[in-house]
């Protein structure tokens, strides 16, 4: 994993993105504590110990980060999370497609949803090139996946039109 905190040729480190994980961890730890305040000691002991260490680590990290901002060595830019910027729209679209895949698989069933998702995602990443190959590949993967997961391994996926039809045919 590359750990180059400088980017864009600027001299300053962009440490804003580095604070995302600690922020999420801190919020989660505080939320966790709120759920165990009235609990028996068995529920609390590990969490308070681990949470305390986590919060201390975060505090040291944030303070040292803020000090470097104060010294003018760093800023709170979020660039590291988004760079290279040109990929962000593609990545956001891929995320939306993945979310839709999970959402629609309940109605569409495994095969059709996988076909649509894999096809759309590949077209997105190839920027529309090789569309015939991609459609054929998506069909092969979806049907292959159907036979492997639904038919052979009997995965209890929600059944869609394709699975219901195949159940009648096979």
């Amino acid at each position, binding site marked *: 994993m590359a750990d180059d905190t400088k980017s864009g040729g600027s001299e300053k480190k962009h440490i804003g993105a580095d604070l995302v994980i600690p922020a999420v961890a801190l919020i989660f730890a505080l939320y966790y504590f709120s759920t165990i305040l009235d*609990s*028996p*000691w*068995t*529920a609390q002991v590990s969490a308070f110990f681990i949470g305390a260490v986590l919060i201390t680590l975060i505090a040291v990290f944030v303070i040292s980060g803020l000090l470097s901002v104060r010294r003018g060595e760093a800023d709170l830019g979020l660039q590291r999370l988004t760079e290279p910027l040109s990929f962000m729209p593609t990545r956001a679209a891929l995320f939306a497609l993945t979310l839709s895949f999970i959402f629609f698989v309940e109605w569409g069933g495994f095969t059709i949803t996988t076909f649509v998702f894999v096809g759309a995602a590949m077209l997105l990443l190839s920027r529309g090139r090789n569309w015939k190959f991609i459609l054929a590949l998506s069909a092969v993967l979806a049907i292959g996946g159907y036979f492997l997961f639904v*038919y052979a391994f009997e995965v*209890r996926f929600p059944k869609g039109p394709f699975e219901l039809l195949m159940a*009648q045919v*096979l």
Partner: protein
Amino acid sequence: MTHFDRGASRRAFLKGTAAAGVAATLPLSSAFGASFPERNMQVYVPTREGGGADRNQRAFAGVWKKYLNTEFEAAFYPGAAGRVAYEKYMGLAKADCHELIFGNMGPEVLNWVVEPPTFDLNDFMYFARVDADPGIVFVKRDGPLQTIDDIVAEGKKRTLNVGVSRLAHPATLGMLALGRHTGAQFNPIPLSGGKNTRAGVETGEMDFGALPAGGIVNRPKNFKVVLMFTHKNPLPDLSDNAPTVNAKFGTSLPDLVAGARAYGIKKAAIEKYPDRYKILTESLLKVFDDPEYKEAIIRTKAPWELIGYGGPEECATYAKAMTDIGKDYKDLLTGKS
């Protein structure tokens, strides 16, 4: 060891594989027409594969399917001490008598004492108990404690660690009641399931254990039963004639049947399809008289003596008794004293 004819075995294997392949291609539901059951029966199991409930359900459904002309599919949801299975069942299962739940009533009813479910308990009922496995106290066969008197005497000198499946369990309640009555100090350690509890006692980490009898009496070389939490000892030969708690200590505890596995159903299914419910209840009764069922149970090394039918009323009475004693020990079960 059984010596096998390898040629014949290979043929059997290939035949089995082929048969399984062909069977899988048959649309089972359509093969038997539109009468109930119209499709495979689905059973929600609140414990893990390989546990006592799985074993019992497999054996029972293996014969019941003959009378219902359909297959049984079990789905295991061991989450949250069985809560997940009940919530899933009440939330997702269709109320058409094809979907049932098969659980161990005692510990699962005690769950609701500790924390009520999100659904209304009045919408659900158990309708057929298939076994009554008494809660017992057991020790390691060659361990330092050999009788219940040893345990009580030692428990008065020091706090003894008792391996239990979970805190909200009839066998645990039995231990707590015994401690309260005799003044012995027992510290129940929940070990998440019978398998781990047996391991805890076998390896000597626990001083002794409290579980349903079924998983213990079939391991006589490892364990010895020293007390039963029921009015009668249904397994005198298999349990070294262990005394019952009320006879031994003069207590008046209710029958702490620790393994009372039963099929449950949504009441809405019964109201909507009384004819289907009737088919279910009538057909399942036949299973108990079927020699194939007895054979299947004996093959799993579970004692046949513990198998017995209990109807909806018996199930309700048992569930209420468990709820009442659970309320009595609620503080100890939740750690909020």
